[in-house]
């Protein structure tokens, strides 16, 4: 790297007493955070705060002398925790900034005050500027993005809570107003942030910095290819989400629809626990079967497949239907009192006159059917009542679980 516009710096030798410099600089850099951390306790006059103040000052001195970041952080954390426990209104998030500041001061001390240096530098004049510019640009992009995303989430949430009267206010009551609920809420917010950063912000930054013609071409090509293959294979995040939603819905409905049927079987079981296990197994099994069928249907509907090979013609269905026909005919022949000719003409409905069902089987079947028709209404009623009961039970369980978790 030659040229007149370079900064040259060479250092040959050993700085023997850099340890003192390090200690002093590290101490000075962290003195203000210590002051801020101690302020809420310093004002109070009880014994606990005085002891904690002294302890944290001691920890700080120890940390600075040993140049140990962990001890220094502890010296800042301990008074803040005490202050919060004692009920002082203290902005909590500031502690994170103290910690980051301790790390940064560690970095400064490490880079600037090296003990053994036989080093040589050759830098362009604009290199430090670029370094600072890139660092600040990337960090500030993230800071701004995180601020606006969190603001947006909060605004949307506020709008939803204020404009939907019943349901979301209930939701708010259950979720946000409780302790665990608020923790869950902040986790959701952070997860959304994580998703936005990981998928959009980082991609934009790295693509801008590493953009070349080749890369752009490759990206466009791969994007199209990926989308195409996703839609063909039913893979990819959106398709997966879609299919999982379907699975969830199936689970929900199968639970209710199976309930009345399995309720009748429950008498057969000696123990109720055994019945619950059986119920769960059946529920899962049926749901997955239904899910598999629906998945197949959806897959067939959404994908276009080229069939290179013609399907083989199968005679299985033909033989089955032939067997059924023979069975039907022989049954009628056995049970009918008429002679064969009339019987055949009636069986195939070839005669002009209306068929007269006066055989034993036909009579019996008719009777059962009439009975069933009379009672169908009550059956349906019974079924629906049980389905309602099932969902009530589910709601009850969820309610109990929520109460157990939230208190």
């Amino acid at each position, binding site marked *: *790297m030659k040229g007149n516009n370079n900064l040259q710096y060479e250092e040959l030798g*050993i700085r023997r007493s850099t340890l003192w410099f390090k200690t002093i600089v590290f101490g000075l850099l962290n003195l203000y955070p210590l002051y801020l951390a101690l302020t809420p306790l310093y004002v109070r006059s009880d014994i606990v705060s005085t002891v904690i103040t002294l302890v944290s000052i001691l920890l700080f001195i120890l940390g600075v002398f040993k140049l140990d970041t*962990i001890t220094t*952080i502890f010296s800042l954390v301990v008074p803040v*925790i005490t202050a*919060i*426990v004692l009920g002082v209104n203290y*902005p*909590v*998030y500031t*502690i*994170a900034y103290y*910690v*980051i500041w301790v*790390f940064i001061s560690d*970095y400064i001390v490490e*880079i600037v005050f*090296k*003990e*053994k*240096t*036989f*080093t*040589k*530098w*050759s*830098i*362009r004049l604009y*290199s*430090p500027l*670029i*370094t600072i510019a*890139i*660092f600040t640009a*990337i*960090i500030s992009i*993230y*800071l701004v993005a*995180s*601020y606006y*995303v*969190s603001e947006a989430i*909060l605004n949307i949430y506020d709008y939803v809570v204020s404009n939907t009267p019943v349901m979301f206010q209930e939701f708010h009551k259950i979720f946000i*107003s409780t*302790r665990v609920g*608020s*923790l869950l*809420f*902040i986790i959701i*917010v*952070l997860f959304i*942030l*994580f998703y936005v*950063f990981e998928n959009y*912000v*980082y991609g934009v*930054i*790295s693509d801008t*910095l*590493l953009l070349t013609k080749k890369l752009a071409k490759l990206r466009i090509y791969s994007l199209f290819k990926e989308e195409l293959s996703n839609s063909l294979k039913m893979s990819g995040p959106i398709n997966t989400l879609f299919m999982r939603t379907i699975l969830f819905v199936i689970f929900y409905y199968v639970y209710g629809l199976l309930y009345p049927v399995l309720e009748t079987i429950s008498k057969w079981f000696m123990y109720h626990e055994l019945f619950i296990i059986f119920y769960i197994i059946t529920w899962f099994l049926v749901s997955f079967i239904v899910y598999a069928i629906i998945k197949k249907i959806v897959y067939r509907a959404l994908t276009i497949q080229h069939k290179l090979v013609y399907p083989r013609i199968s005679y299985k269905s033909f033989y089955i239907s032939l067997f059924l026909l023979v069975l039907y005919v022989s049954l009628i022949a056995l049970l009918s009192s008429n002679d064969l000719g009339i019987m055949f003409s009636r069986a195939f409905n070839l005669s002009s006159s209306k068929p007269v069902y006066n055989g034993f089987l036909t009579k019996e079947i008719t009777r059962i059917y009439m009975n069933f028709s009379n009672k169908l209404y009550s059956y349906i009623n019974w079924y629906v009542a049980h389905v309602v009961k099932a969902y009530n039970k589910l709601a009850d369980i969820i309610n109990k679980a929520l109460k157990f978790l939230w208190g």
Partner: protein
Amino acid sequence: MSRLFYDVKPTPRLFGLLILISTFLTLDIIVHGELSRETIIYSAILIGFVFGVKTLVDLSAKYFSKIEFKREFLDPLIEDKNVRVKITIKNSTFFPILRISMIDKYPGLFKLVKGSHQYTTTLMPRSETSYTYVVKPIMGKHYFEGLEVIVSDPLKLFNFKITINPPINVVKVKPKPIHIPVEISRAWVSRGLGFGKTRIRGYGQEFYTLREYYPGDDYRFIDWKSYARTRKLYVKQFEREANLSIIFLIDASRNSMRSLIGETPFEYMARVAAGLAWNLVKRGDWIGLTIRSYKVLRSGYGRGVTHYYRILDTIAETEWNPVEPKTTLGELLVKEAINIPRRTKTLFFILTTLLNKKEAEAIIEASTKLRASGHIVYIVQFLPELFELKLLKDLEAGIYYGLIYDEIIESRKIREILMRNGIYIVTAGPRDILEALYRLIERYRMVIV
């Protein structure tokens, strides 16, 4: 260079930070009973900061393949002489690497003298930085294990670690030839031997005298000028050159590598061989050097200053490997005798610790063969215990002597066996090797006279 795999990992610091933040959040919620809008926004900003820092490391990983690393040695590689090792890092991209920490893994036998092999810096765009550290090398072939690079963000929250091998990673350190004091060399050289020539007639370069031609003499040596003057046939005669032919056979097996590094018998052997080689080369003798380590190293057979450097290079090829060699010294001796290009009487010096009876028997067998063809074999037995005792004092020395007593007895027995078989054997310690060897060589030169 294997630089393809970069795995950006979070450090324990990040987990610590996150645990701290989450603890405070929980504490806040428990104490205040609800989540304030402010807390959400500030924790979001913190997460943003952490992600920004991660992006910096991720991008560094993407640019890392374009960064050049170079290792240079600023001084010649000679044992006991400090060598400056310079590591240069060049970033020709437009992206800065905010914290790069390097550890150069120099060979384990080397000693760090000045500076540090570890270096942490910020690598700015379009910049070049280098750091130098000084090591004290040890004779032989050594390997640099690689440059361990850790790239992280300034806060050390995320990093990736990679070991790269900059171009020069094998070093061959030459021995420091033992200095032959002037008194010794003068004492032996001044005994009327001049520059190693004898007043003996024979084939050589220097003209000695003319004599009358007898039938059967070589036509090539007829002096035609004298014939023109005197009408008689005369034959030219030359001085025979009394240059010696010497082969050093160094045994670099496990036993010769005992004692402290820098003071081992092997190193003494190599230094003495190198020192004597320089002296002999100046006098025009023919020399060869063979090292029996876990593989056999040969310098070849020759004379002149170039050959001397070849000998040094051969010594520098020796690896510090404790694997026992497969060939015995006897076998090697016979092989070397066969390979000598000139048909001259050759002096074989076997420099060994010789603590093995089998080896001794093989040497006896080989030396009888060599003696038949006119060669002379000398065994210079280095007593490793003397090398170790040199470093110990008083009680320690006594204890050590007690511990190795059996070995001393064994080596004495071996010596007796060899002497009974008529083999010349010389025992030497660290203080008297040079004299012993030098005396032997000069005595042999006198025998020829």
